[in-house]
């Protein structure tokens, strides 16, 4: 069934998938527990701050040019946007997308609203935004408070549709509803797919066959041919413009037309989303919700297979697509040539990075794909720490088990106390990390390298080259880490470092 067509609110991944947010053990045990659907039972009896889906939701939708976002909630939800302004501006510039200042509002719910409901304020906010800014789209992102008190944002949007010029897109993304931030992808796609046109308009976007044409059948065949040669790449805020460019070039090299959706795309360009023969996800954890819906409604097939990071994964990613479009031979030739070129480029760095002990912390697919890539570079992966786990990730973790049997995996949304403990134990040379956890690596004296960054290459061949170069550069002079490490004051009692890092995860339930 398609949730998108059938229900106002998206489901959360906690119920839609087999997920987990707490685990510590070998990759094999992880897969077994996940297979039994027992992962979510492994909760923590102690937890630190994690993150919420509102954050990622805003990060995604605010990339749409000509949109204004209203955060429906108390004024604190949305304060993060201050750190989003710069990345979105530079992300737009890197993609040649024109975008003015980020404009957003908060309905600033107060004590009285929490008692009597905030729908009136939301109504007022939508009208105000429409009048003052005349955007093409108004996003309404609802946070915890209005969801607990039961505000109906769809209802408000519906009653205003005739009155305002903008398209209103409600987004259901309260943090308390889900344990995994990745639910945000569903929340956003739910909103986009329900409220934007996903197919071209006859007469406006194309001239429908009118019987006067010379050869209608030939026209249709030509249309089908062009459509079949067009591939949509589905992006995400964690994937930068340089990576989009690299993959686009790869696919162009095998003769395909490439377009990139859904971030940094104007509302009206969504009408051409379905004018493609194939949808390709760039990361297995992002897009199944949307791509399944498009397949069901518009018949476009899709490919979701891990992430084109590292030599083997990239080849597989490319060949998978080529197999569908009938470009196998060309794809193999492209991969051969690029691999040979890459190996020449890597040679000078390999001696320095060979044998480095590496720990990875971040997104579930990315840590696994990067771990495999690092193994290709001759590094030794000591552990991976995905933010969460779900069964969409099974294929790549199965591969991880084959390539690095017994590898330890710590499923944890941040939970820096577990990280610090593991770093103290494993003493990695390098930590590849997302977000602020690099700080803990530095304090523990390890070099940290970003696991992702929207301004740099990570994917495919250029990405692999850059990764190696970055590692070599980072380990060349570790003076800062060493000296900061020597002068660090760690916040936990020494007793904690002697204990099992997973003491607070209730794991015995994993195999019940």
């Amino acid at each position, binding site marked *: 069934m398609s949730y998108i067509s059938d229900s106002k609110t998206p489901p959360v991944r906690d119920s839609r998938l087999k997920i987990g947010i707490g685990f510590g053990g070998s990759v094999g045990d992880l897969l077994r527990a996940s297979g039994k659907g027992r992962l979510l039972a492994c909760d923590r*009896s*102690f*937890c*630190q*701050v*994690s993150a*919420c*889906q*509102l*954050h990622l939701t805003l990060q995604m939708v605010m990339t749409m040019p000509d949109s204004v976002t209203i955060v429906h*909630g*108390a*004024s*604190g*939800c*949305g*304060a*993060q*946007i*201050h*750190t989003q*302004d*710069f990345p979105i501006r530079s992300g737009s510039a890197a993609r040649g997308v024109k975008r*003015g*200042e980020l*404009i*957003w*509002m908060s*309905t*600033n*719910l*107060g*004590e009285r*609203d*929490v008692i009597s409901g905030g729908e009136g304020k939301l109504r*007022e906010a939508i009208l*105000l935004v429409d009048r003052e800014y005349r955007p093409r789209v108004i996003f309404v992102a609802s*946070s*915890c*408070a209005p969801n*607990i*008190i039961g505000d109906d944002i769809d209802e408000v949007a519906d009653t205003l549709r005739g009155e305002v010029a903008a398209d209103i897109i409600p987004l259901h993304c*309260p*943090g*308390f509803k*889900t344990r995994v931030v990745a639910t945000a992808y569903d929340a956003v796609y739910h909103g986009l797919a329900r409220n934007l046109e996903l197919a071209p308009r006859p007469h406006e976007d194309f001239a429908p066959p009118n019987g006067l044409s010379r050869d209608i059948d030939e026209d249709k065949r030509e249309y089908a041919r062009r459509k079949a040669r067009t591939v949509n790449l589905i992006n995400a805020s964690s994937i930068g413009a340089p990576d989009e460019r690299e993959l686009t070039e790869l696919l162009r090299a095998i003769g395909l037309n490439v377009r990139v959706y859904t971030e940094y795309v104007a509302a009206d360009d969504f009408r051409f989303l379905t004018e493609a023969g194939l949808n390709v996800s760039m990361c297995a954890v992002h897009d199944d919700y949307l791509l399944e819906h498009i397949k069901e409604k518009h018949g476009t097939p899709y490919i979701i297979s891990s992430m084109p990071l590292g030599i083997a994964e990239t080849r597989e990613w490319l060949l998978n697509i080529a197999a569908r479009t009938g470009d196998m031979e060309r794809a193999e030739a492209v991969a051969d040539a690029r691999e040979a070129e890459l190996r020449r480029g890597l040679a000078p760095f390999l001696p320095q990075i060979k044998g480095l002990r590496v720990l990875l912390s971040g997104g579930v697919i990315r840590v696994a794909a990067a771990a495999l890539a690092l193994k290709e570079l001759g590094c030794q992966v000591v552990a991976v720490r995905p933010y969460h786990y779900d069964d969409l990730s099974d294929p790549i973790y199965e591969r991880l088990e084959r390539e690095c049997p017994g590898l330890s995996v710590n499923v944890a*949304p941040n939970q*820096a*106390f577990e990280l610090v403990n593991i770093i103290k134990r494993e003493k990695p040379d390098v930590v590849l990390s997302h*977000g*602020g956890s690099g*700080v*803990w690596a530095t304090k523990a004296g390890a070099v940290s390298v970003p696991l992702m960054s929207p301004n740099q290459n990570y994917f495919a061949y250029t990405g692999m080259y850059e990764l190696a170069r970055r590692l070599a550069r980072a380990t060349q002079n570790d003076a800062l880490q060493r000296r900061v490490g020597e002068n660090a*004051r*760690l*916040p*936990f*009692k020494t*007793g*904690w470092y002697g204990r099992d890092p997973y003491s607070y995860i209730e794991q015995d339930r994993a195999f019940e």
Partner: protein
Amino acid sequence: MKSCIVEQPRTACAIGGFYTALAIPGIVPVLHCGPGCVSQSAALLASANGAQNAHPFNEHIIPCTDFGEADVVFGGGERLRKNIENVARSYKADMILAINGCSAEIVGDDNEEVARGFSGGDIPVLAVEAAGFRGNNLYGHSQVLKAILNHVEPTGKAVGGQVNVWGVAPFYDTFWAGTLEKIGEALTEAGLAPNIIYGRNGGLDKVKAVPSAEFNLLLGPWVDLDIVRLLKERFGTPYFHYPAIPVGPTETARFLRELGEFAGLDRNRVETRAKEGEERYYHYIRRSLLWVYRCRALPKRYYINSGASTALSLHRYLVNDMGLIPCKIFLPEDVPEEHQERVEGYFRDVELDSPYDVVFTGDGGLAAQEIAASGRPKWSLFYFGSVWDEPLSNNERIPFLSVSAPQGNVMAMDKTYFGYDGALRLYSDYYEQVASKGLRTS
């Protein structure tokens, strides 16, 4: 009053008060709120505000119940209790604050009861209510301080010369750390014994010493006025309220003299200090006059869009020492109504009689709208604000300084505009901006 609908708020929500706790070494806040609430405040108050993070209890290791669906139904009190228990076991904590955010307050989780369950233990556990729908981070700041200070026991007798310093909201005031260090130095030089609970030299011992002060010093227009009143009520400590953190020779000398009078300091010592400061200040000003006069058109008028404390400090310096003229001052921090008249009076108390408005609001976007529409020649203006005001200044090439949360790509480190030396920083920041906007010929 909460503004109805706000554009780009310049304050975080009440939960952001946890930064006040983190500024006092030894205190660990345990949050009972949604999983994303911390990062919301962290962006505005710390990472996008002077490149700060808390230390050693940094944002990522703050215990949080990550309030979820099940807690809405069953209540999350038990999980809060477990979290506190484990913090006591593994963190180097001397005090724990159990802080309720919106969700916990809406469903009615009783953190006071949870805290009471720990009474008599080794580490004090205190409950704080800081729901975002009740107020902004300054409300949260006050809630946190009140909880801590209500817990402090009287010490019996005053220590000669001891003065507690209030009025600076840690993190929110981007330059809090440097400012407090310098205020401490200035007070020591004046012959007093400063007691500052926040920052590098702060801590619970400083908190415990609060009742033994001879007096409390409140520097700022309204924040912490409730605190010094509370301390007067609880411990009978008098307070000296100077409404602005002094910046520049005029204000600093005035502050030193009034302080001297209040605390009965040696008058000669005060005058000597003021004279020295002034001499040094003007020495450097004179050394740069030639460069400054080559600025093709010296902007004369300014707008400020910032928190009240920062705005007032800047405003008094800009008028009294730099000879500039205010156009309009926006204070987007929801200054409570009861304080507004008083605060406005502080802004009028400068050596210039000219009409300008002081606007109390919660809406950070007002200033930019007005400046864009003002019709004044943009090169004649200077704009003080936060990172949200920067696009306008870039587009219109208005010289601009980020002075208020969130400051954006600014590294605060130990920077401060306090006193004589701080004014030199501000003066040079100001003219560097003028020059970088192309308003200077070489």
